[in-house]
């Protein structure tokens, strides 16, 4: 009998298993494939290896701005793949080692729920006081004629040894946009069809505008008012039929799709009464309990943002609750990191959402273009936007776009978690010159005393 059986060895399940074990639970983790899940093997980590390569290439190409005239003789994609595999392998090994070190039993195989207290793995039955479902997500190819055959998956991009000559990317989420940047940097002709909701539909207007501008500057062809209707094979290529202001066809080598859906099939969930939410994920309450007592669910399997860090932090909460604590998961404190050019880091609600709620707002905005370090490094694309409540100064959302945004957003998460007000953040000190100064400056702007911006009265519309 285990105290906790965790199903899924991605970042969520891994964190949950260790946390439950730290709380002196007898824990088993069941993984059907490789430890690390999508994040380590086919997601976050591999894309960051590739994006680093793209970044370096980009930096070398524009090094002449600093008087360095260099040319790139060769890009060895195989070396990138090897490096990617190496990093993923190191992380997997570390994970397995740490699970063992924490006394978590790693069981290989596919888990099926037999009852709310029993998990079957390859014929044997594990008895569990509590079960944590951390099964992640899988690719979800939109149901369009011909798309499945033409589909280039992110898995394939991450293994590529030859860059396709042209790709149509269908979708507008963080993965699609990161893929656009990546492929474009390696000289692939990229068409982006974001669909009816536009780029990054869940993000604030300001980063959306910056990212749109960034993609255009990189030479990604943005087909904003078009939608993909069908794909046909034609002369070794694919012909994408687009609807829009006028019907249009595009001949491309492949069509990249990366939308994802929660991994919940064939696990016996329905049979034991685990209910789903409107996103097709497992429905959980604030304590991450499912509709069946004793069963928790975390991460991509619950739908929502589908972010690795959301999953691992949910894993901690679920494990603690499984071990008898009672804590709520702070859904509103999940940051988003998007590795486009420029980068995006965001947490909390957007300006539009805040206005919809009828909150009286104070918005602080500080452009990178007058941040000292941004100027010195010639990375002036971007800004920090802080949305705060006018009454109490509560920070409701922070939207950073530009260099280091994915790192800087941590400041905002901490401020919001500790319920720091914009007025307090405005008085915080940052090293100079750093991008982090822009965060404090934006907080000052939200508090009506931006030091390095023209007077508000001149700017007010």
């Amino acid at each position, binding site marked *: 009998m285990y105290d906790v059986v965790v199903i899924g060895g991605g970042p969520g399940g891994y964190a949950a298993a260790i946390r439950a074990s730290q709380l002196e639970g007898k824990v088993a983790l069941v993984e059907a494939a490789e430890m690390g899940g999508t994040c380590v093997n086919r997601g976050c980590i591999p894309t960051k290896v590739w994006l680093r390569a793209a970044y370096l290439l980009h930096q070398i190409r524009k090094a002449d701005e600093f008087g360095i005239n260099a040319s790139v003789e060769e890009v060895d994609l195989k070396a990138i793949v090897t490096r990617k595999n190496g990093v993923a392998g190191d992380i997997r090994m570390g994970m397995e080692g740490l699970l063992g070190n924490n006394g978590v039993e790693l069981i290989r195989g596919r888990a099926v729920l037999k009852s709310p207290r029993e998990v079957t793995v390859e014929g044997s039955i594990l008895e569990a006081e509590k079960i944590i479902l951390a099964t992640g997500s899988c690719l979800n190819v939109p149901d369009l004629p011909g798309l499945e055959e033409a589909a280039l998956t992110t898995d394939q991009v991450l293994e590529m040894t030859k860059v396709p000559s042209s790709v149509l990317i269908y979708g507008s989420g963080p993965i699609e946009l990161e893929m656009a940047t990546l492929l474009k940097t390696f000289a692939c002709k990229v068409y982006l069809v974001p669909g009816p909701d536009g780029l990054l539909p869940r993000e604030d207007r300001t980063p959306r505008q910056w990212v749109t501008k960034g993609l255009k500057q990189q030479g990604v062809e943005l087909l904003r008012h078009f939608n993909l209707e069908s794909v046909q094979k034609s002369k070794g290529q694919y012909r994408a039929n687009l609807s829009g202001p006028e019907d249009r066809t595009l001949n491309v080598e492949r069509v990249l799709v990366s939308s994802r859906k929660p991994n919940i099939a064939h696990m016996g969930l329905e049979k034991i009464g685990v209910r789903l939410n409107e996103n097709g994920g497992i429905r959980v309450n604030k304590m991450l309990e499912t509709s069946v007592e004793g069963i928790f669910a975390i991460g991509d399997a619950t739908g929502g943002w589908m972010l690795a860090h959301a999953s691992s932090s949910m894993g901690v909460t679920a494990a603690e609750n499984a071990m008898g604590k009672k804590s709520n998961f702070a859904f509103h404190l999940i940051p988003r990191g998007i590795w486009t050019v420029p980068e995006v880091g965001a947490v909390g609600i957007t300006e539009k959402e805040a206005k919809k709620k009828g909150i009286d707002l104070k918005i602080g905005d500080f452009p990178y273009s007058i941040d000292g370090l941004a100027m010195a490094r010639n990375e002036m694309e971007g800004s920090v936007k802080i949305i705060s409540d006018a*009454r*109490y*100064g*509560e920070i409701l959302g922070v939207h950073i776009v530009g260099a280091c945004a994915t790192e800087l957003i941590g400041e905002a998460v901490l401020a919001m978690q*500790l*319920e*720091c*007000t914009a*007025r*307090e953040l405005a008085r915080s000190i940052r090293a100079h010159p750093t991008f982090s100064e822009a965060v404090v400056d934006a907080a000052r702007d939200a508090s009506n005393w931006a030091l390095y911006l023209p007077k508000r009265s001149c700017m007010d519309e």
Partner: protein
Amino acid sequence: MAINVTMPKWGLTMKEGKVTRWYKSEGDPVHKGEDLFEVETEKITNRAESPGSGTLFQIVVPVGTTVPVGTILAVIAEPGEQPERVEGIQVGEVMEGAGASAEGRAAAEEPGEKKFVPASPAARRLAKELGIDLGLVQGTGPDGRITETDVRRYHEEGPAAPKITPLAEEMAKQEGLDISTITGTGEGGKITREDVERALERTTSIPLTGMRKTIADNMYASLQSTAQVTVFTEVDVTEMVRLRDLVQEEHKKDDTVKVSFNDIIILATSRALKRFPMMNSALIGDEILLHDAVNIGIAVSLREGLIVPVLHDADKKGLLQIADESRELAQKAREGTLAVDDVTGGTFTISNVSMLEVDGFTPILRSPETGILGVGRVKEKPVVYDGEIAIRSMMFLSLTFDHRVLDGTPAMAFLETVARYLQHPALMMA
């Protein structure tokens, strides 16, 4: 072993207390839990129980002396034991929440068992010297261990303010919420936004406007600007009841005639006021104005609040007219059709709570009037009547008067007159 009885600590802010009473004398046997002494603090007076059983060997701190928390007040000896006598002010272990009924805050804190508090030996020694309960000191050492500096800081600065997030603090400030009343549920008991929201939910705020605002202002102003004294008397009103029944019987065929006890009380009061003009007066500036007219205000309770229509020239009106007019005024008050004249010019007020099954109360003067009569319910009680126990209808009257205008003796004489009129209504004719 002898037990030292020390000045207890009730609540976070208590630093010292005054012994106001010893329930036992030296040499008396005492039992654990029995009331031993009384302590007066800034906020309350409270009885303290004996922390043990034995003989009260020595009372160290006499009645009337104020000493810091933790000071040894007395020594309880076991039978046959002869402990050393305590000389002067000495510090012992602080008794926490040992009172018979500690005040609100103290009760909310964990009473009884002392928990182990991690502290350095130096900190323990200093705490003992200063009479500080280590449980109240915030430790800054590893794992919250209390250091000597922490104890000294506590001694100098008092208890630390509750931990609260900046946002929660701002919200509490703006909403006028006292943070010491909020329970923190965050890390280490920190008060968070949610806690403030929960605390705010518990209280509903109703804006003070309109009638409520007027009443609030008037009541407060009255108590602030006059010297009010209330006196009581219980009256045998059996004859008043009989009079009411008699009048009703006499006019039973006439639907328009309805006489209440209050009408008879108005009649009696108006007649008595003619004999005590000082009660029918107003102190304005440096002058006491004696009114010729007797205009009786009758307090009427409405859902929105209290209103006092005025029955003019009551002294010149008979019972039936008073009954008729007072009913009409009450009706107008309920319908909201009172005219300005109907609510102004009052010289004395009657407030009757008999319908609320209440015996008595201390009415607040309607400034600048000098008197207000409070009327309780009529209740049949066994009383001594004519040398025998009989069942009689009894009623309390309370009179609040402005002591600036007149003294107790004339005011009580007035009340007695009203009482006699109600006891023997025929006297109103004389």
